[in-house]
């Protein structure tokens, strides 16, 4: 918990733009530099900044731990699910061509979905790790 008003106000102002930038990096990865890994880290940094300034308990109120862990697993499942979906439609694992009306649109859909899965997993792993480290009590404190 930080009482410095400049930090608190600037965190509140910066929070939404950081997430917006993360989403831009996530979904613009097909056209420019970026993708799931970078976007996940950027989105996670917004939540970590909030936790650092307002305290871990406030951060957990903003983004509860159970949702965090659920999304952490959902990202990997989404990636694997796209692979399974293409198998069920009669192609090989992770062959996106079958997912859309034309091979190109199938590729677009597949890449968008798996990048989103990567982003979900990476961002939630980072937030979960930060929370675990911060709320970890070492043996000395007991």
């Amino acid at each position, binding site marked *: 918990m930080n009482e410095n008003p400049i930090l608190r106000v600037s965190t509140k102002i910066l929070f939404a733009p950081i997430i917006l930038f993360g989403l831009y990096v996530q979904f613009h990865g097909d*056209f420019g530099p970026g993708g799931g890994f970078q976007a996940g880290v950027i989105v996670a940094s917004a939540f970590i900044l909030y936790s650092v300034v307002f305290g871990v308990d406030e951060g957990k109120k903003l983004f509860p731990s159970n949702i965090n862990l659920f999304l952490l697993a959902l990202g990997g499942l989404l990636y694997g699910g796209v692979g399974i979906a293409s198998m069920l439609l009669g192609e090989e694992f992770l062959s996106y061509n079958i997912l859309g009306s034309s091979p190109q649109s199938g590729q677009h859909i597949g890449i968008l979905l798996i990048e989103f899965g990567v982003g979900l997993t990476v961002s939630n792993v980072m937030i979960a790790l930060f929370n675990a480290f911060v709320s970890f009590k070492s043996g000395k404190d007991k």
Partner: protein
Amino acid sequence: MISELIINAFLVTVMLAIGIALLRTRTLIFTVVLTSAYSLVAALMFITLDAVDVAFTEASVGAGISTILFLAAMAYLPKEEEENINSQTLPALTCILLGGILIWCSYDLPEIGLLSSPVHQHIVPDYILGSRDDIGIPNIVTSVLASYRGYDTFGETIVVFTAGVAVLVLLKNNTQTSKQKNKNSKRKVS
């Protein structure tokens, strides 16, 4: 060409300076901050090599989030590193020998961006053309990462997931017991 040389020389000098500073510091927080600075310079170096995606990753992961995680983990470590009492001549000799071999080998590397070098001849032309014709995505890095090498990226995602879950499980026991203790102490107060 000459400007590229100046930029590269500057970046290498900064990297060397950070490396020497890293060797000399014994305070953990300086080590963490200097490692972050090193990653940032490395990111700039990747930009001079036109590898913007790698630079982006290095800047966000290497300089950004790993610094935060190091700082969060550092709270449980002593502030100063202990003085190393072992002899340092053998490690130094090994490093110099290995570095010398690597520099010697680097003379055999093809020039950066040379079209006739083997890496640009094998499968890369297929990827570059396929990214335009089969996938329709301007960023070739994304099409290789997500489509042509989708299996590898799936593996990477699962590695991140597994590593995260493993750390959470390792730390979980301790946090739970402390939470229970807090509850017990609160009950006592009330």
